[in-house]
Structure formats: C-alpha cells, structure tokens
C-alpha cells in the first residue's frame, strides 16, 4: 500500500472525498483518470485551492488538498485560518516535503514553522507520521474525522513495526530512566538510531513517536516528565512554536518543570543539500543526536563513533 492507493480506495468508497492539488501531483499522478471531476487541479494557486476546498466542504465534501508544505501554510495561511478555521470545515491538508524533506530546495521551501502556524488555528488538528507505514495507519482516521486537519506527509520507508494509531495518542516506543526522546515525523528514524547508540553506552533511553501534535497527548508527556530523566524534544522545525513549545505549555499548565534539551532549528533556516548532507551538517543524524544527549547527560560523546547512513529523499519537487 502506498499513499496514492490509500486515497484512491478511500475516494472510490466515499464520493464525498475530493482530491485537490495546486499542481503538486507527485503523490497522486494516476488519479485524474480514476476520479474524473473529483480530481481538481487549480494550478499554482494555493489561495484559490484552499478557498475552493472550503466551498466544497461547505457542500458536504471532504477535500484532501495537496501542495508543498511551505506554500500551503505560508502563502495560503489566511485562507486556512479564515475559511477553513473560522468555518470549522473538514478540509484535509496533505502537506508535501515539510521540514528537512525539502532538502536541496533552499529556505524558500523550508516549512519549519508549519506546526506553530497550524496549531495556532482553533479547531485545527496537526499530525506528523514517523514514516510511510505510520502515515498510512493514521490517514483513514484523520480523513474520517469532522475536524480540519494538517498532515506532514512522510512517505519515507521505515523499519519499525508501529502500534495501531489512536487519535490524539502518542506511540510509546520505549521508556527510559536517563532520558526520553520526544520526536515527530521523519526524524523518528534518526531518533531510533540515537536511542540504540545511547543504550549501547549503558544509558536507559525512552522514545516517544508523538504522531499527533494537536491535540497533544498530554498524559504521555506528563508520564515522561514525572519519570524524572532528561527530556529531549527533537524536531525539524524552528525551536519556537513546535514540540519544545508544546512541552513548555504542558509543563506550565501542570505547574511542573523538567530538564529539557531542545534539538531544533533555533532562529535559523537550514543549509540546503541532499538530505544526508543536511542531517550531517545540521547535527540531526542518529550519531549527532546521541552525542548531544550524551553530553547533556555528562557522558563522553566521543565514545559514540558509529556513523549512520541516511536514505536520500526520493522527491525533487
């Protein structure tokens, strides 16, 4: 199963579903012939795409819109906020190449404030699957929900066998007493590697795949904090407004504090290049992450020497 098959099957079973795009067809190339008028390409018009999706949703349709994450969330932000948000309409946003996945495109294409923007819209739900299998397990529930939804599309292959998705719940991959890594989206694979490297150094390290950023699984975050170790927020997003901020909000709300290591992009865009180059340069490979955590734990980062291989991104758009 791939994304295109899932959306095709869903659309063929439910004629409310409309596949829309602002000429970003990477994931849905074969659907025009299958869906006919229920495949709508508005051309390079993100604002009209979202407005038209709102109009279709007003008529009882479930539009799933496709475009690059940065253009959807930035160019069309006001349309998402004002038409979809105020209208509380079930428009489903499939946001392509978010975060590091725009690898070589450069800062114009880096959607690394999208989580901050989307979660600021009342009623908007926000999701970031760890890999393709995780995403395909999540989308049916996201599309079936009456809420507007923003999904950081992630078609990268994964090796981890995920637990079934439950709306609003994080996936607890492991618990640990020295540190716990909170992660969402494509960095999950690097977090898995980082955890293994740290465990090999005798550290007890937990790992949580957040999956849903809004509504966030507050209980899961509180359990991690109450366990007492270092909490690591790992994200391909600006440090402000994403998971680090979400954790801070949960802590304040519950009158708690914690030792937190944010691994994010602090007040800067990332250096463009092949994905492996980006992760290496920016310090987001499993090895780099493990070293940063080891240092924070007072261990010797130089003891972690295993280099991690990165599968390159398959999209060039």
């Amino acid at each position, binding site marked *: 199963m791939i994304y295109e098959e899932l959306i095709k099957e869903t659309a063929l079973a439910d004629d409310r579903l409309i596949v829309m795009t602002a000429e970003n067809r990477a994931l849905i190339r074969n659907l025009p012939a299958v869906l006919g*008028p229920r495949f709508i390409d508005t051309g390079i*018009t993100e*604002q009209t795409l979202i407005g038209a999706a709102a*109009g279709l*949703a007003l008529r009882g349709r479930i539009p799933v819109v496709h475009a690059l994450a940065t253009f959807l969330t930035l160019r069309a932000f006001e349309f998402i906020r004002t038409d979809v948000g105020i209208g509380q309409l079930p428009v489903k946003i499939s946001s392509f190449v978010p975060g590091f996945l725009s690898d070589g495109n450069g800062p114009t294409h880096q959607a690394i404030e999208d989580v901050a923007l989307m979660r600021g819209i009342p009623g908007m739900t926000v999701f970031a699957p760890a890999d393709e299998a995780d995403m395909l397990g999540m989308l049916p529930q996201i599309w079936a929900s009456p809420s507007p939804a923003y999904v950081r599309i992630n078609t990268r292959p994964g090796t981890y066998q995920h637990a079934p998705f439950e709306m609003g719940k994080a996936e607890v991959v492991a618990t640990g007493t020295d540190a716990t890594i909170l992660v969402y989206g494509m960095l999950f694979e690097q977090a898995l590697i980082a955890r293994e490297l740290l465990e090999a150094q005798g550290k007890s390290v937990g790992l949580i795949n957040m999956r849903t950023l809004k509504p966030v699984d507050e209980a899961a975050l509180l359990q991690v904090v109450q366990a007492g170790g270092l909490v690591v927020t790992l994200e391909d997003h600006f440090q402000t407004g994403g998971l680090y901020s979400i954790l801070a909000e949960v802590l304040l709300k519950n009158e708690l504090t914690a030792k937190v290591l944010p691994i994010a992009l602090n007040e800067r865009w990332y250096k463009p290049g092949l994905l492996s180059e980006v992760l290496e340069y920016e310090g987001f490979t499993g090895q780099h992450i493990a070293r940063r955590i080891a240092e924070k734990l007072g261990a010797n980062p130089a003891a972690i020497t295993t280099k991690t291989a990165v599968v390159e991104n398959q999209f060039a758009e």
Partner: protein
Amino acid sequence: MTSEKQDELKALALRVREHIVRLSTDGGCFTGASLSCADLLVYLYADFLNISPATVDAPDRDFLFLSKGHDVPALYGTFAELGFMPKERLANHLKANDSIYWHPNRAVPGVEFHSGSLGHLPSVGLGVALDNRMRGLKNHTIVITGDGELNEGSVWETVLVAAAHKLSNFTLVVDRNHFQANVATEDLIPLEPLGPKFEAFGWAVQRIDGHDFAQLEAAFGALPFAADRPSVIICDTVRGRGLPSIEARADRWFCNFSADEVVELLKELHSQESTTLTSETLTVR
C-alpha cells in the same frame, strides 16, 4: 419588467435603505458601500434567486456569496424585509449577545459564508460551483465583489481557475461603485477597461446600471452568458446611492451619524434633498 414590478422593487429597496440608515449610528456601519449594492441585493433576493426563508438549507438552492462583506447592512435590511430574520433583530446591531456586526456570518440565516477579508469568497464560491456541477444541478452560484476588492490577487487567481474549468454556473457580480475605502479606484489602482480585462481572462461579460431593475433583470435573466465560460456582471453603481448628501464622496465610507442626523437622513431618502451633516467623518475603520 412591468412598471408595477419596478415600483414594488423600488419600494422594497427604499425600506432596505431605511434599515441601512438606521444601522449607521450607535457605532455606525459601512453606509456608502451598503447603499451602492442595495438595489442589486433587493433584485436578487426578491426576484431572481431560488432561495427563501423556507429554503435556506435546500441542497439545490441558488447560492449567493457576499465577498465585499462590509456592505452587509444591505443584506441585513433585505433579509429583514423578506422574512429571513425578524426586523427586531436589527436592534441587536453590534450587541455581543447576537451576531449582527460589520461583516456577514452564518449565524444569520441566509448568509452562506462569513466574509470580511477581501478576495476570499470568489474561491469559496468556485468550490461550491464545482460541487453543484458535479451534482448535475442547474442552480446559480453568484459571488458579489467590490471594485476595490479587485486589487486582491486571489480574485484573479480564481478568475483564471474558473475559466480553466469552464464553470458556466459561476457568476461574479462587481459592485462597481468607483470607490475603494478612501479613494476613487481610478485615482489609486485604475481598473478600467474592466470588462475587457475579464474578457481577456476568458469570461463572458455584461455591464449594466446596477440601480436599474429592468437592466438587472435582463442581465441576470440571460445567465449563463456562454455555455463554456463563467459570467461576470459589472454593475455600475453610486456609492451612497439614495442619500445625496453622501453620494459619491470619498470621505463617507464608514458612517456613524448622530441620532438627529439619522432622522434627517431618513427624510432625505424620501425627498432626495441633501441634509447638512456635522458628524465626524471616519475614513478608517
């Protein structure tokens, strides 16, 4: 159109204008833009659109979207007169316990979607028109924009896309009152020649006097203007139409009259003789 019908619509439009004047105090409203589209809205709801208080949710109704939302007092007045909402509800204007404020919202029966930020409802209407076509309906989807609103790039995106999709069930109506907020359109961002602009974008165009009910009937009755193109009706109108003391004045966009002025302006609607206005002129809201 018979002269009896015209008289009936004129009388209705006069009552709608009275509502607009009464809403132009105690906080005020966008009086000028409301008066320019009053005849248009009266014609559409009283004589053209397949929608009534009993059919506001009917799946096959005609859809009207007011994209230049600040002229909503004209819609409130029309809805009050035609029974979409009780007239008494207009007394709740700007009261927090109701939803009768400076821009439209769906808490008012008959309002299809909220607006206020310009350049949004052409695209929302496009989505609705696409859905209506998929359903095989023969109904109309009409979006009213201001002329100043045509400054917004998103309008022209949608104009391109609607033409590409050959959406003949989709109609834009431009309330061409020749003013944007504070300045005449042609002094700021000139729009003319406006009809040829739309033609160049692949639309079928008619241009009429938006205060003439016979011309409104002739134009709307001819929809769709083409079988494979969307239609646009450019309605030349006068900002502040009906109140000679504020007609076509750049400085009378948002009006908040005193109670005494409202009494005089209600007389002016009937006499068409200008009153002297002393209330503060607001050009920014």
